């Protein structure tokens, strides 16, 4: 009897050992992607990687906000099995780096990336994020409506307002830009810059300055007077269908949506009817945001860093970047923007507006800080107040001052004040 027990135990032990070895030999990684055009492109291409590398990729894709939440929860509780993930450098970069959730990428060749792009991927001397996608702000407009009204494509804020007035009718909103509080902060940024303001300067909140408040008033006046009904509840996902349905004449938002606006499966407009132009200049300058909206990183907690690196190298390769460009995704690598074969197939409007933004743009579209979510909501309150009063609110200066104090408190809480 005792022997039988011994034998069973031995057999079980051997089995455990074998299965352990087998487990160690499975070449599998867990990858988290965003529901973003580049995430979709990767999803479709991953079988190629699996075939060539022999590594099985377990894939999850989530909407951007949920992706941040999911990664944060897993990393903070030390329970993550994620190896590689898409990440938003400006939204979560500082927080993830501070908490030590990114693996430093020592062996990666970053020569193909512009310096300003690398500035949000690098902390100190180490780089943690491979930039994937660049976005800049543009003006989308309806060629047909502008032509019918005899309006030229606006190149200044004054012309933009005049055009919005001319094009606005009962059926079509003359102008639209995000009005939904925190979500609108990125799209307001170019207006603030073009008026000569900033959100943060040297680790201090400064969006209560006269230029910044003037910009918020202008944004509120345009959206409140010529914007679609209920614009304070609208982000890009609400405005895009309206534009595609022909209900908006001009729309300022990120360049990333161009592919979807002209996609015949998604729009009622003919591709010829949609124009794309540089953001109009403000009273002070013309400096649209141009940002690294997405990057890719390896999790510090990953136990398969070599496999993860193999995947990362493939997913951020020049070849895939070229494929992204052909799908109207504006990639961060410099070389694909110099490749004539690629550029021949990319919309010239995208090429031209990128060149302008790369020359004159500002590399941030939000307050760049760890507590960015809360700071965006605070600035968002000003946007809603301004839109609701069509830019005339008597409280705006006072409100801006209070919100600046609160954002400075957040900066102090996280040790980023005046840094």
């Amino acid at each position, binding site marked *: 009897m005792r022997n039988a027990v011994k034998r069973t135990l031995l057999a079980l032990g051997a089995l455990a050992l074998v299965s352990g070895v087998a487990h160690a030999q499975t070449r599998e990684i867990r990858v988290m992607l965003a529901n973003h055009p580049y995430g979709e492109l990767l999803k479709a291409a991953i079988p190629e990687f699996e075939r060539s590398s022999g590594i099985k990729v377990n894939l999850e894709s989530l909407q951007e*906000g949920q992706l941040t*939440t999911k990664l*944060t*929860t897993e990393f*903070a509780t030390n329970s993550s099995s994620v190896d590689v993930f898409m990440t938003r450098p400006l939204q979560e970069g500082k*927080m993830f780096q*501070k*908490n*030590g959730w990114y693996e430093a990428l020592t062996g990666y060749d970053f020569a193909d990336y512009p310096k300003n792009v690398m500035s949000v991927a690098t902390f100190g001397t180490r780089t943690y994020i491979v930039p994937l996608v660049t976005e800049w702000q543009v003006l989308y407009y309806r060629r047909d409506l502008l032509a019918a009204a005899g309006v030229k494509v606006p190149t200044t804020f004054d012309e933009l307002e005049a055009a919005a007035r001319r094009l606005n009718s009962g059926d079509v*909103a003359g102008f639209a830009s995000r009005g*939904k*509080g925190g979500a609108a902060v990125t799209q307001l940024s170019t207006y603030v810059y073009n008026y000569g303001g900033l959100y943060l300067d040297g680790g201090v909140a400064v969006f209560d300055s006269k230029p910044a408040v003037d910009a918020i008033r202008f944004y509120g006046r345009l959206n409140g007077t010529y914007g*679609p*009904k*209920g*614009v*304070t*509840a*609208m982000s890009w996902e609400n405005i895009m269908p*309206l534009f595609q*349905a022909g*209900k908006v004449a001009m729309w300022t938002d990120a360049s990333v949506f161009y592919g979807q606006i002209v996609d015949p499966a998604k729009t009622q407009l003919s591709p010829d009817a949609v124009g794309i132009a540089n953001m109009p200049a403000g009273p002070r300058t013309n400096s649209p945001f141009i940002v690294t909206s997405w990057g890719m990183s390896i999790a510090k907690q990953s136990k398969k860093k070599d496999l993860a690196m193999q995947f990362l190298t493939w997913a951020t390769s020049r070849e895939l970047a070229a494929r992204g460009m052909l799908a109207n995704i504006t990639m961060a690598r410099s070389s694909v923007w110099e490749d004539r074969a690629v550029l021949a197939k990319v919309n010239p409007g995208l090429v031209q507006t990128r060149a302008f933004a790369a020359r004159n743009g500002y590399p941030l579209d939000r307050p760049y800080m*760890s*507590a960015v*979510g*809360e700071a965006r*909501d605070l600035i*968002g*309150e000003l946007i*809603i107040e301004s839109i*609701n009063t069509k830019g005339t609110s008597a409280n705006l200066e006072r409100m801006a001052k209070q919100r600046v104090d609160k954002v400075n408190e*957040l900066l102090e*809480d*996280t*040790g980023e004040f005046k840094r």
Partner: protein
Amino acid sequence: MIHSSFADRHLHRLFPLPAMIFVALLMVFPVLYTLFLSFTNWNLTSGQPPTFVGLRSYARVLTEPRFLEALGRTFAFTIFAVAIEAVIGVATALILNRSFVGKSVAKTLLLLPLVATPVAVGIVFNLFYDPTIGLANFVLTSLGLPPALWVSHASTVIPALILVDVWQWTPMITLIVLAGLAGLSEEPVEAARIDGASEWQIIRFVTLPMVMPVILTAVILRLIDALKTFDIIFAMTGGGPGYASETLNIMGFKYSFEYFRMGQAAVILVALFVVVFGCSLLIMKLRERSET
């Protein structure tokens, strides 16, 4: 047969043990852990480990205007939604308790909102409420009425959300009250009728008092649920425009998963727990009184 004197002697403790462990792990532990977190300053954006700060997070959160507004909004949403649901739900139950042609079809139709997923309901209602291309404004303007902004404006967002809650959850009250009505004895009603009471008097003085404990049960269940409403509001407005539809639960979510201030989020959730617990106790006391 194996005899174990220990098991025999402790049978009454052994059998409920798995259930008790289950309850402790899945219900008591999270509540206690949340309570523990509320005494810390755990903030993921600072990159620092949590430290014990006593009641400091309570002092900061509970005095914030945004918290007080969310608290008021939670009560307003709950009271109006549940009151409307109770009135319409009981009235519908009284109608359905009579026999008429098509009664079973009406009962089945009534159940449909209950089985719909709240997030899907939210998405459909958002399309319905869209100020530019939505059906709701089309109906209003067709009737010669001015269009409304529904969930897109601070002044109309809470009533518009209450409407969705009423649409979805009134049938639950109807269903519970209907079951209560089916269990009532017919004799008091007949006695009242013989005494010459009108139909309205019978409902007011005989049926309703008899079914009141059941109505209160339905109201307690709805009340607890409405105080914690998350899915419909999150799917439809995310608490906006601005914070105009931010209830305690939504605020707790934003503090934890958008601001990553875990300690302060825990304070909000403890406050919500106290509110729900207090309201339930209050209604249970009322119920006891109505029974005696």
